[in-house]
């Protein structure tokens, strides 16, 4: 199809998409623009940027938000590593080995998807109190991992089942043992599936507010999801600084996404279905 013909066919669709995109992005663009204003400028001109710009809003928002971002990484990275390792192992075991009770066990794990996370928060809180794990790394990370490995195991099993058996048989004939098969063949082939899981996991741990609210008492240890909330509570009347804190809180994931966008979007293209 020639270019102009395609354009004649497509322009109504493009126009509607453009309008949808503009409505989607206006609140965020507004936030960025006004993060460079002081209150007097904000009250005078609501929508458009005005000079002089006030980057010092960012300087004022940075100490609290920087700490919160650091905290978030402190919780999210161990969660990520453990989720990948544990889901990978479990998914591999379900996909590659026959053992008694395999199907029942798998259904028992999948059934956990139906249990509302909020129901478990209270008993988990009692466990955290009993173990004296409040304000600790493991107190945040291990429950998070337990949430993520349910979907993770499902995803990794589905992926490992698509790998051709011949790869494994050939290696076994060459004398490879079970661990070599896993680490030399399965893991390198599973990089795309593992990255999808990694991104979903990161989104989850970065966004969760209920568990950090319950398990963290010390406001210096709060992750971004709650840090930005308490910062907005303190600086709510100083619009520029508050908006700057929103921008800072959003940057880490946007930067990570910029480097992994293809993988992120392709990960879902396998076609999730039931």
């Amino acid at each position: 199809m020639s270019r102009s013909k395609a354009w004649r066919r497509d322009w109504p669709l493009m126009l509607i998409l453009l309008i949808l995109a503009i409505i989607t992005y206006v609140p965020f663009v507004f936030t960025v623009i006004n993060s460079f204003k002081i209150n007097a400028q904000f009250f005078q001109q609501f929508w458009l940027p005005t000079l002089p710009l006030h980057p010092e809003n960012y300087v004022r928002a940075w100490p609290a938000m920087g700490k919160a971002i650091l905290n978030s990484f402190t919780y999210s990275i161990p969660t990520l590593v453990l989720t990948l390792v544990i889901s990978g192992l479990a998914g591999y075991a379900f996909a590659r080995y026959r053992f008694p009770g395999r199907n029942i066990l798998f259904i028992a794990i999948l059934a956990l998807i139906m249990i509302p996370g909020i129901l478990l928060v209270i008993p988990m809180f009692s466990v955290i109190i009993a173990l004296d794990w409040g304000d600790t790394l493991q107190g945040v990370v291990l429950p998070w991992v337990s949430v993520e490995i349910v979907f993770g195991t499902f995803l990794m099993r589905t992926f490992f089942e698509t790998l051709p058996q011949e790869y494994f048989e050939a290696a076994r004939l060459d004398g490879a043992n079970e661990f070599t098969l896993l680490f030399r063949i399965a893991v390198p082939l599973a990089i795309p599936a593992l990255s999808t899981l990694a991104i979903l996991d990161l989104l989850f741990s970065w966004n969760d507010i209920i568990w950090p609210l319950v398990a963290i008492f010390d406001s210096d240890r709060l992750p971004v999801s709650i840090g930005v909330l308490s910062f907005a509570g303190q600086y709510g009347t100083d619009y520029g600084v508050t908006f700057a804190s929103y921008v800072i809180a959003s940057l880490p994931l946007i930067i990570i996404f910029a480097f992994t966008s293809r993988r992120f979007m392709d990960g879902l293209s396998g076609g999730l279905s039931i």
Partner: protein
Amino acid sequence: MTQQKTPTTGAKTESSRWKLSSGFVPIYIPILFLIPALLLLFAFRYIPAVSAIFHSFTYWNIPEPGEFIGLQNYRALFDDPIFIKSLGNILKYMVGRTALVLVMAFVGAELVYNLSSDRWRNIWRMVFTIPMVIPITVNLLVWQQVYAGRQGMLNEFLTGIGAMARPYPWLGRPDTALPALIFIGFPAVAGFGFLIILAALQNLSSEVNDAALIDGCSRLRRVFAIDLPAIRGPLALILILSLNLGMQEFAPMLVMTQGGPINTTMSPAYYLYIQGFTYGKHGYASAIGTVLMLMTLALSIFILRMRYRRAYDVAV
């Protein structure tokens, strides 16, 4: 859930072949691989689930042990006007939110899918994916600013174009607070639903589309007659996820309205949080959670039944 499908004969021979060639794998190998997952799931999922249900029959104030009181929590719960109100609220929220998300995700995905240039398709897909990585709390706070009575974007816009004489506190009035929460993120195209539907559309065979086109089927008719039935699997998935997440929603209430005004945005999950962690009534909160779980289960089973009743696209 895919696992419950009957395996095809091909897979069966393959698996038996696999079994033969790995006949000497000792049983402890798979068990070894599963132990970390099972340990965590028992400690933080299964045991807490049982514990929550058990403690819904107790008077419980952590760290004190629960004291058994029979059905008292449940009786109190169904006499609790705020809880009853929260059930009605969440029903409206769930249905409204799911309808909005599902329709807009489908519309967005169809618009992108029908473009003739691959390059533009990728660009639009990217455009509607980026908002997904903005932290949820930031999104909610930004939308609080959209709805704000003073210096709110919606008010500035509506008064600016002359549609309204004076600003209106959207989140502060009982009649608009819940609808305002439903419309967070409007037009709600950017989300997992959009990505999943678009991927499903792109996986459809182009031959069917070409045949329909040759037979004189218009693009709009194709959307409803071919696309919609063909992607009912992913649509059902989004429906289940969206309804379940809607049922358990509590972040917008916590961040934007604290359940107000006069409990018009109170949700069961947020009420559970308040009862458990503001008032320390952990037994009562567990009862709320148990009811919530039963409703979630009933809903999921209902949707799956609807999905597979007379389904022609899957072997059941």
